[in-house]
């Protein structure tokens, strides 16, 4: 496996360096950069598969980094996440081959190619890292590379603001991680991940709780759980679409990887409130994420909020697993963890597909605003069909992949009745309700996203003149759509390696049976047969339209105008708008959105009986930014203003500070 890793890294390096070296020839640079990323991602996919079947890898380079040197290793969990990363990176690189064409001449394709390769390579190496400094170094490399990719279109003001928020949030998370790792290293005396599992059992409860909170905050901010999600809806839309697909589909999963490592490997089983906190955070993220997505008109921001929602669903599985582990039910803990990890893979696949679709629409219509789209299903039929597959998958409808992983999550949450602690039961029940509400609202949101964007009449000139995108972009989306279908109707493909992965991680054998026919949870508690459902749907869909022909029904059809209730013509102005579609939700959940309505009516100067224009704004306010972040930022600014007193500019004052600091250090350490 070491040779696979070296080949992969060689491809990425070739892509990165080659992109910079061929910078003067734009098209060549673009091709070299993206082709290098594509080959590297293929190598990584092979690497991940080799790791899942039980391959071994140990790479130690002692002097490359201080203290422990670089240490890389693979176990099944790392291999699974390498597969997830590759599953997102292969289509992203293929898509980028076509998508980045429009950046030629406007932005540096060489730098983009370099950063793209470094980004994917850093993500792959992060999950393979086996000691603290390797992990943190690669984590930072990943964050910086993604920052530069987000800032590609840096001439736009909102992109710069988005990049800034992303930069601050990711480094705040990094600080929490750094502190957590530091405390854990000090308490266990070693920097190697492999030794932490045994050593952490001897820690005292306060340190363990503190370390858990710090590491959960750090990984949670990368994953984008509420309330640490504020960077997601800004950074993901600002980045180029193939980068958004990677960030949303793959990078935030590294937060999930971290939390899975912390809870099941490094710190071991903790008190019940750990699992409860993760479960509650997951439930809140799921519901709030989808509620914020419902009122968005920017297609990419909508998808970014859905990432928050799906991370919430994954956290529901992880939190449930942690609670089961605390209650000494390893089979159910493993089931919950399998559900969470399966959803991780599924989300990577369908979220990448959806972002690529949004990128294709952006490419064709030059707008991200849904209120200006419409009728694209006739202008871009293949993109529409592929986006539809992604929408059905994310709405968790059978027989696609989102359905099976949500079904498993439901089963594991429902099986919580085996724990006999009433508070825990209530938390699980609320988790079930949250997951149900989320899946209903997600379906509603994607009816809006697909319906307003693709169906009916175009609402603007750019939508009316949209053209289908080139074959590389469609091929990448088709690959992901195929993956959605295959992962949905053939769950053993994923469940078999996942069962082994989870068993390696926490020693529990998942409480389920599965074969190509059906998946059974906990000895008959729940059954589902996705392959049969798919076959049944296809069989009926073929048979039912034929039946009327057999009985001689009328097959004549006439095409005519939509019924207009008496008005003479139909234009796009008579269609339903995205704002109107989301209105019932805005009213029902007004407590959350706190909408601000503005109505501007401009009258004719000569008479108030004639109205010239009416402008209606109905926007929600961002609660977390107003209630949490702005006061925090104001407090930090106030403290900084007070601390400015120290910067007197007087050299003698600074010399006194140095003396005081030296004396204090000597007293503390000696």
């Amino acid at each position, binding site marked *: 496996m070491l040779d696979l890793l070296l080949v992969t890294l060689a491809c990425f390096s070739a892509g990165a360096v080659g992109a910079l070296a061929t910078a003067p020839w734009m098209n060549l640079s673009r091709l070299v950069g993206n082709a290098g990323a594509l080959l590297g991602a293929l190598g990584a996919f092979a690497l991940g598969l080799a790791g899942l079947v039980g391959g071994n890898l140990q790479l130690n380079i002692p002097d490359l980094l201080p203290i422990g040197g670089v240490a890389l290793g693979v176990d099944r969990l790392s291999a699974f996440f390498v597969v997830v990363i590759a599953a997102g990176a292969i289509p992203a690189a293929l898509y980028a081959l076509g998508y980045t064409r429009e950046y030629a001449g406007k932005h540096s394709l060489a730098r983009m190619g370099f950063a793209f390769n470094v980004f994917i390579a850093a993500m792959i190496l992060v999950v393979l890292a086996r000691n603290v400094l390797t992990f943190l170094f690669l984590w930072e490399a990943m964050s910086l590379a993604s920052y530069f990719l987000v800032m590609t279109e840096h001439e736009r003001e909102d992109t710069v603001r988005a990049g800034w928020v992303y930069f601050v949030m990711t480094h705040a998370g990094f600080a929490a991680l750094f502190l957590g790792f530091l405390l854990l290293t000090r308490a266990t005396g070693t920097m190697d991940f492999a030794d932490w599992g045994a050593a952490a059992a001897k820690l005292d409860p306060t340190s363990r709780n503190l370390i858990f909170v710090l590491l959960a905050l750090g990984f949670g901010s990368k994953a984008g759980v509420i309330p640490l999600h504020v960077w997601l809806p800004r950074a993901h839309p600002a980045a180029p679409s193939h980068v958004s697909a990677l960030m949303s589909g793959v990078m935030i999963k590294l937060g999930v990887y971290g939390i899975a490592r912390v809870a099941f490997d490094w710190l071991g089983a903790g008190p019940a409130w750990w699992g409860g906190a993760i479960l509650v955070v997951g439930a809140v993220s799921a519901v709030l994420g989808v509620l914020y997505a419902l009122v968005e008109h920017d297609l990419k921001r909508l998808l970014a909020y859905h990432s928050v929602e799906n991370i919430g669903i994954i956290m529901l599985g992880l939190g449930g697993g942690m609670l089961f582990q605390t209650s000494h039910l390893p089979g159910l803990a493993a089931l919950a963890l399998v559900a969470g990890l399966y959803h991780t893979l599924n989300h990577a696949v369908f979220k990448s597909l959806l972002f690529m679709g949004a990128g294709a629409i952006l490419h064709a219509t030059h707008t991200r605003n849904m209120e200006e789209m419409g009728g694209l299903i006739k202008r871009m039929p293949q993109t529409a069909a592929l986006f539809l597959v992604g929408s059905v998958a994310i709405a968790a*409808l059978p027989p696609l992949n989102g359905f099976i992983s949500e079904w498993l999550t439901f089963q594991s949450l429902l099986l919580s009745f085996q724990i006999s602690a009433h508070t825990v039961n209530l938390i699980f029940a609320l988790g079930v309700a949250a997951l149900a509400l989320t899946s*209903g609202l997600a379906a509603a949101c994607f009816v809006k996203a697909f319906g*307003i964007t693709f*169906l009916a*009449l175009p609402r603007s000139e750019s939508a009316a003149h949209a053209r289908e995108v080139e074959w590389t972009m469609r091929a990448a989306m088709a690959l992901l759509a195929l993956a959605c279908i295959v992962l949905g109707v053939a769950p053993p493909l994923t469940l078999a390696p996942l069962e082994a992965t989870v068993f390696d991680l926490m020693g529990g054998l998942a409480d389920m049976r599965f074969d190509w026919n059906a998946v059974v949870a906990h000895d008959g508690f729940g059954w589902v047969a996705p392959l049969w*459902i798919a076959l049944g749907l296809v069989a009926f869909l073929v048979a*039912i339209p034929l039946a009327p022909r057999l009985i001689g*029904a009328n*097959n004549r059809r006439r095409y005519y105008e939509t019924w207009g209730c008496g008005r003479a013509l139909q234009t796009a102005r008579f269609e339903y708008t995205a704002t109107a579609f989301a209105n019932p939700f805005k009213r029902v959940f007004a407590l959350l959105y706190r909408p601000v309505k503005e109505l501007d009516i401009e009258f004719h100067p000569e008479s108030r009986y004639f109205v010239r224009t009416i402008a209606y704004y109905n926007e929600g306010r961002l609660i977390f930014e107003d209630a949490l972040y702005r006061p925090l930022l104001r407090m930090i600014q106030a403290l900084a203003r007070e601390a400015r007193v120290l910067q007197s500019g007087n050299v003698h004052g600074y010399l006194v500070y140095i003396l005081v600091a030296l004396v204090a250090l000597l007293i503390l350490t000696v």
Partner: protein
Amino acid sequence: MLTEITIELLQLLMVMLGSPLLVGVIRKAKARLQGRRGASICQPYADLRKLLTKEMVIPENTSWIFRFTPYLLATTMLLSALIVPVLTTRTPLGFMGNIIALMYLFLLGTFFLALAGLDAGSAFGGMGSSREVAIAALAEPTVLIAIFGIALRAGTTSLDGIIARSVADPLLMLNAGHLLAFFAFFIVTLAETGRLPVDNPTTHLELTMIHEAMILEYSGRLLAFVEWAAGMKLFLFLTLLSNLFFPWGVALANTPVALFTAFLALAVKLLLFAGAIALVETLVAKLRLFRVPELLAGSFTVALLAVVTAFFIK
């Protein structure tokens, strides 16, 4: 093997052919309660036959989704008919899905119907879609918590298993949690199948329509399939209510006598439910749209109570 195919075929035929009759019975009962004579209970059959002979008028702005959706709706309903234990607890294809999978199969149909509503580009269709998905989304938590309540008592979420456990313990039906879950599920049935007080299936005013608004543009054969699928959804929901909560008469073994008894028992239960729905529709006025979330929140609270009682009264 032959028995299995026969049973599935019987269930399929019952749902296919019985749903227009069920709709006809409800309309007749409503008419009688309102002091009218009402159309014959076989009128829906005549309506479907008429629609199949008519020419389809398809709006110019629509896409393939408009023509695909009626067939998909019928497909999901017929597939569900194979899974739901209409006559027997030993449904051969019952392993295809448990009650959660069934609810998601229904949601698949609603998803595409909402898309078809938006497809024609009229404001009425969009309004219907928006309201329909809002109600479906808000009804989901109630459904799943009610399922949780039922599953707690029965120890399984598979439909056959729930009925088998209920039959084994006849006093279960007087259990407070059981009745609470039934009440919550009944309200969800009214919401999902578009009956009063959530949606009036006989209204002519577009601004008050929810389900009807989405299907406003359908005509001819496509409308026949949509109406038939809506009837089948009502039939399946009432079958679930009858057999999950009051499983008297459901066949436990696949013998001809048991199946015939099951058929008669189901017919009686569906007749009673049809009467109950007609009574509710006559007595209760349609709720304002933004009162419906309050109704659904109330049913959610009832379902949560069912779950809580299941934990405390073992």
